[in-house]
């Protein structure tokens, strides 16, 4: 059965984030508090890396169940890590966790233990800053990712296949990206084909949606293209999504439109989940 390989330190998998850093990412998306698309994707990356690090944290450090790349594409295509990881492609998660470019403090409302909420300050590590410059060479970025995926599947031919997560406004300027996307998912391990998920940040309006099973209702051709490029969720991810109250079917895809993508980290199975009784 595909997508059932154990993810462990001896059989890790890789997660390759592709981050659109083109000039169009300086445009705002709608919503109650308008944000630049570049801020949205940078925030998403920093939250994803935080969630991954915490998920794999043990008392001796973060375990390298995952190796991570953050590839920016805009004026150039390459590593988008800031700080001491700058210039590096695939990095073991423990190194990522121990080397954020900086740690900001942000206020957060947390339960006060008596049924209310209280504002507190939490550390918010940052690995990349918002960038908006140049065109949107999505084909180049996907080819870059394909190269990393090919290397990984050769190194771990029996492991859980790599996952590529593309965060973009969808406005590719170097051609239609579907063929390059198919090239990424053509690589496979014995456990299954590489997965490609997409986060679409857009000013086109419409209803934010996460992990839909149809392109109906998506607002424009960019969204529909990205939906079609996205891999169907493997069975265990669908099962977890369903357990969290999401409506899923066999055609549910790894696609998010103007919504929170960090929940994808919870789809990853590294062992018994640490969840409070409800």
């Amino acid at each position, binding site marked *: 059965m595909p997508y059932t390989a154990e993810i462990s330190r001896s059989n890790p998998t890789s997660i390759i984030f592709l981050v659109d850093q083109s000039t169009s990412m300086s445009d705002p998306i709608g919503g109650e508090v308008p944000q630049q698309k570049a801020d949205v994707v940078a925030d998403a990356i920093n939250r994803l890396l935080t969630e991954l690090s915490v998920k794999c944290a043990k008392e001796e450090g973060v375990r390298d169940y995952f190796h991570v790349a953050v590839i920016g594409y805009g004026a150039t295509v390459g590593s988008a890590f800031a700080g001491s990881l700058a210039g590096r492609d695939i990095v073991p998660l423990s190194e990522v966790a121990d080397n954020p470019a900086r740690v900001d403090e942000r206020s957060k409302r947390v339960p006060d233990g008596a049924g209310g909420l209280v504002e507190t300050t939490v550390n918010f590590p940052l690995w990349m800053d918002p960038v908006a410059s140049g065109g949107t060479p999505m084909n180049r970025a996907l080819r870059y990712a394909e190269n990393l995926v090919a290397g990984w599947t050769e190194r771990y031919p029996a492991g859980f296949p790599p996952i590529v997560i593309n965060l973009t406004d969808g406005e590719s300027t170097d051609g239609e990206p579907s063929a390059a996307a198919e090239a990424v998912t053509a690589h496979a391990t014995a456990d299954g084909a590489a997965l490609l998920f997409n986060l679409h940040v857009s000013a086109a309006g419409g209803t934010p949606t996460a992990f839909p099973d149809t392109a109906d209702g998506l607002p424009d051709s960019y969204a529909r293209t990205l939906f079609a490029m996205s891999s169907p969720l493997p069975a265990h991810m669908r099962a977890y999504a369903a357990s969290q109250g999401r409506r899923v079917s066999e055609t549910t895809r790894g696609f998010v439109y103007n919504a929170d993508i960090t929940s994808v980290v919870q789809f990853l199975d590294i062992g018994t*989940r*640490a969840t409070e009784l409800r």
Partner: protein
Amino acid sequence: MTAPPSCVYVTHLVTPKSGSTEAECEDAVTVLPGCAHDDMLRGPLTAAVCDGATESALAKDWARLLSRTAAEQAMNGPELLLGGAAFEAFASSAVAQWDPWLATYTQARVAAGRPLKWYEHTKLAAGAYATLLTVRTDPIPGPPLNPAPAPAAWRWRAAALGDSCLFQLRDDRLLRAFPVATPEAFGTAPDLFGSRNHDAGLLARRARFARGRCEPGDRLFLMTDALAAWFLSAADQDSAVRELLDFSGPDDLDAFRTWLDGLRERRQLRNDDVAVVRIDFEGR
């Protein structure tokens, strides 16, 4: 003719998943009274098995604390295995030990020049998590003046939260499984006992309780989920029992590990830490 001696033997084995070290094993077992595998026990016995959740930090420490507390308190007050207020009191006392333990641990890390990292602060704020399975057995004396005394029997009571399992065997056949009865019921999100769950009422409501009677010749096995799932899914359960019975004491640990590795290689056993407690009721 003299009746054979009625007694209980108990032994347990704990081993980490393939690829992990002994120190990383997050399954914990406490058996009371502390005894060797060949000691003949004639009084009450308690055993607790806890399986720390992979996704939580310090899960092994919480599993150890929880199993020790459960076995001790079940020995001192078996009513906790009936649920209700007694179980709530036990749950509260276990949780109350965590924050002081964590404060000591945190100070020790600072003293060692390894203060907690940002991700540990985030993770430990949620607490640590483990399953819990506790059992107590008590001998039921036979009639003292019966000239041909019936073999002794034992009463057992158990409490479980999550998917660590108790199996009762009679004539080396499965008589009862608790709290999980089918291999399909195992998953990656079992109910867990959180080290910061101060809702003792919720813990008591979600815990499952069972009781039974053991005859001479019966056995109880307590297992964490991976081995329990293998046992319940075995195509030939008689053969599975025979394989398990090859391991009867700490000297068998190496052979036990080799056997588990073989099951893993054949993809019959999920790669996970394994804990097993075997209780043999003698006197037949």
